[in-house]
């Protein structure tokens, strides 16, 4: 089981790296917002896997909070874009 968890952690870290490439390269601000949302979703997956590995169920509460924060950040960025705030992208 530990090997499986290690493999999945490596895979998700790779996903984080690929997402980070898009955050850096992303031609416009909406692309970066989408990439940041995928960031938070990937971290929720990582936290879930770590909860299984360490046998501590409280990590799932942290996963809920991270998912909520990602959603709220996406909503706030979208409001910001639609209101036409200052942009430098």
């Amino acid at each position: 089981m530990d090997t499986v968890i290690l493999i999945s952690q490596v895979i998700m870290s790779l996903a984080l790296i690929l997402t980070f490439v898009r955050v850096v390269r992303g031609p416009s601000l909406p692309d970066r917002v989408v990439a940041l949302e995928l960031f938070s979703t990937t971290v929720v997956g990582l936290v879930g896997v770590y909860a299984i590995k360490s046998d501590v169920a409280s990590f799932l509460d942290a996963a809920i909070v991270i998912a909520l924060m990602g959603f709220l950040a996406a909503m706030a960025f979208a409001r910001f874009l639609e209101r036409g705030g200052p942009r430098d992208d």
Partner: protein
Amino acid sequence: MIDFIKGTLIIAGSLFILLAAVGLLRLPDLLTRMHATTKAAALGVILVMLAAAMHFAEVGIVARSFAIIVFILMTAPVAAHVIGRAGYFVGSKLWSGTVKDELRPNYDPLTHELKSGLETQENAKRQPRETDPD
């Protein structure tokens, strides 16, 4: 047996998340990138949370992981809709191979108005007509 199912779920979930990241990196424009991330990443997290529910197998923790699943199923489409809408309004470029953009002829980016093509004086009165069915 349950270890095997758990391992399969974890690996499948992380592969789906990797697939979402590859799609985000490789696809050509904002809407196709969102199409990759929202669905594949949500499915990946759902599989991982199912594995967590099977691992702990207690009522409170299973309920908690199902709460995460329901939360992601509710918020992922809403966030994708809001970002896609904002991205279209700020004029993010569509892919050159886009076949149909139904908003383009009806939406006015300057006044932020959406016309249906049925704006006549007759319709503006909002009165029932002779030809309407009862």
